[in-house]
């Protein structure tokens, strides 16, 4: 398989972005964008299509099996995980464009600074003030809401989120659903206020976020449940499993 990678690069946070095109060849039919980036970086002699040296392409990865969210980037206009984006899906077209997520400040090449996501969760006080327990009525929802990778793909496509916006997007709504599901009595009011202010009020409910979530989180369900509990004051879960 031979494929052209068109990569948007940037030396550091203040320098001008530029494009570099590299031809990548591999025998591995299951190769991903992560494979291509790794192998290009491992090959000191590789040249771009104009014959220039390719300096190591900076990107973040960790698990290489779509479980850690590190490698989120924009591949052919869609935010997704590089370790999940198989080249064979693009082979017909012959070119893959690779760009950093655009909602966040670029650090270098494909690395962006996603610190805002954690800061939002801290400001919203996403934790349990005292001991709790995931009883059987909420265990499904607590499991689902614990699966968020904090990758940022949902924020990338969200029309209402930007760095610094009061609205904190789906990447905050999902972990918040964990807290809302089993919140101790004395913390209820506080978490509902946070939810309303930072999530409910800003969300247009278009669910563009759902279609890009690489973890396939059932965002619909979580929102319905959180709204029921935080806005309408209903008990989450309700139906017992057996």
């Amino acid at each position, binding site marked *: 398989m031979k494929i052209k990678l068109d990569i948007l690069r940037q030396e550091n946070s203040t320098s001008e972005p530029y494009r570099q095109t590299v031809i990548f060849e591999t025998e591995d039919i299951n190769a991903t964008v992560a494979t291509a980036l790794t192998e290009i970086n*491992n090959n*000191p002699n590789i040249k771009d299509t104009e014959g220039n040296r390719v300096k190591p392409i900076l990107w973040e990865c*960790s698990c*290489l099996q779509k479980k850690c*969210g590190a490698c989120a980037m924009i591949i052919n206009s869609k935010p997704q995980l590089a*370790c999940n984006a198989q080249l064979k899906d693009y082979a017909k077209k012959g070119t893959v464009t690779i760009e950093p997520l655009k909602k966040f400040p670029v650090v270098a090449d494909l690395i962006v600074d996603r*610190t805002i996501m954690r800061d939002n969760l801290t400001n919203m006080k996403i934790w349990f003030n005292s001991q709790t327990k995931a009883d059987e009525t909420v*265990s499904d929802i607590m499991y689902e809401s614990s699966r*968020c990778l904090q990758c940022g793909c949902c924020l990338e496509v969200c029309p209402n989120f930007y760095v610094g916006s009061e609205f904190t997007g789906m990447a905050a709504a999902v972990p918040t659903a964990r807290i809302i599901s089993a919140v101790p009595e004395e913390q209820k009011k506080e978490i509902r206020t946070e939810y309303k202010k930072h999530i409910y009020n800003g969300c247009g409910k278009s669910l563009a976020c759902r279609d890009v979530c690489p973890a396939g989180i059932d965002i619909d369900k979580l929102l319905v449940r959180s709204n029921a509990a935080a806005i309408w004051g209903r008990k989450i879960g309700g139906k017992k499993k057996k």
Partner: protein
Amino acid sequence: MNRINIIGAGLAGLSAAITLSENGALCNLISLQQSERAQSVLAEGGINGALNTMGEDDNVENHFNDTMKGGCFMADPNAVDGLTKNAPKVIRWLESLGVPFNTNDGEIILRNFGGQKKKRTAYARSSTGKIIMSAVIDEARKYEFSGNIIRYSHHEFVKLLIENNTCVGVRIKDTYTDKISDFKGIVILASGGLNGIFPGMTTGTTQNNGDVTATVFSQGVAFGNLEMLQYHPTTIGISGKRCLVTEAARGEGGRLYIERNGEKWYFMEEKYPELKNLMPRDVVAREMFFVRRDEKCGDTVYLDMTDLPEDIWKNKLSDLREEIIHYLAIDPKTEPIPVKEGIHYFMGGIDTDEYHCTNIKNLYAVGECTCQYHGANRLGGNSMLGAIYGGKVAAETIVSKLDKNSAFDDTIPEFTNITDEPLTDEASPVCIQEISDVLLSGLGIVRSERELIKSLELLNTLENKHEYNLREQNRITLAKAMLMSALQRKESRGAHYREDYPEKDEHFRKTAVAKIVNKNVVISYRELPERRANPNEN
């Protein structure tokens, strides 16, 4: 008094940070990437503790015995005593943080896991590590808000600051700006396993690049049992790594075979008629190695799951099937898949006592980067436990020694471009691969003096081939220590199998301690302590 510095924000680092905070101490939590990216999120199977919820009369003494036996009596019995006694408490703590463990009538279900006689492993479907991490990250967040914990989540360990055999701080680099800072104070290392020493060959993350361990080894920190690598028999090669095929695949009826004279030979079933494909991990991995080496056989072992009933695929192994189709383009329901052993866990690591103190004063180590708890082989489900419990013990040890009358100095250190020595370059991928190739040739599943000496010679040749930067040199030194540890252990025990010494030798039931003395790697053996009659209740 300075903030305590924790390097690594996986389960072990988080546990230490939370325990310090609960005790009013302040810390810096430093990691290359944020906690959501740590290897701890990959754990699938579960976490062990004798909760005795399955009506099997289990107790902590059984857990102690299984752990010691699994580790071939090479672990510190007093440390294991504390680990197993506190395991139920650790799981109850996680439950109180809202971890949705699988339950039945409100009580945690425990499952069987390799090497344990009773059901003792709590789990949250097939992503136990991820689900536990989300809860523990939220708990740490509480103390980030209160200022007890300050996160540095794109920061790299550069080196320890050591004066007169005492750790006085750590130098770290902001990877976003390349600026550095010297953080003064006590240091806890929680930097995970040595994956990066074996690129593409482990089931873990690329983030644990091995630089921390290689650097501190060259700085004089002592290591234990470096020869003990756990291979998992069933992994599949995916781009850049080995991907674990859970033991459940065999538990539910998957069969291993190799082609012999044009026919499928289900070798495990023939050789071990009783337990068949469910023999312990190290035995399976070794047999796979032997049949592949046999001339009459092909060179690929397959895992055949084509006879599994529909409901198992649907209810128990659906994630696995999806993963295999995605990465291998093979549907395991209709076609056997090629499997090979992959490095899954590092039992060896920084040498600590049961309180997680290292040989350097004010330096502690916890989690997979240490050699604590697992001896010559780790039981599945004991490592997350060891990471959480170890983090807690180290933090408590530190708190017990703090001067209660002195306050924490809360100036935030500055990052600058100015250093007394230039930052070293990263190790080059070519060099990393060369070292890995040499190591793998000596530290495979089956080892021998001949192969180990050959590997050491290759490493010497490599060392003299050209100039290396500091990180590369450190890797070579650590590699030497690993090979020497394996060469000098002239017996077979746990994960260490010597074809030339296939039996256990009681004389070697000791911790192999590797250290740099006058620039040379020296291996010595330390006796294991006796189990105290009344080990500390803590």
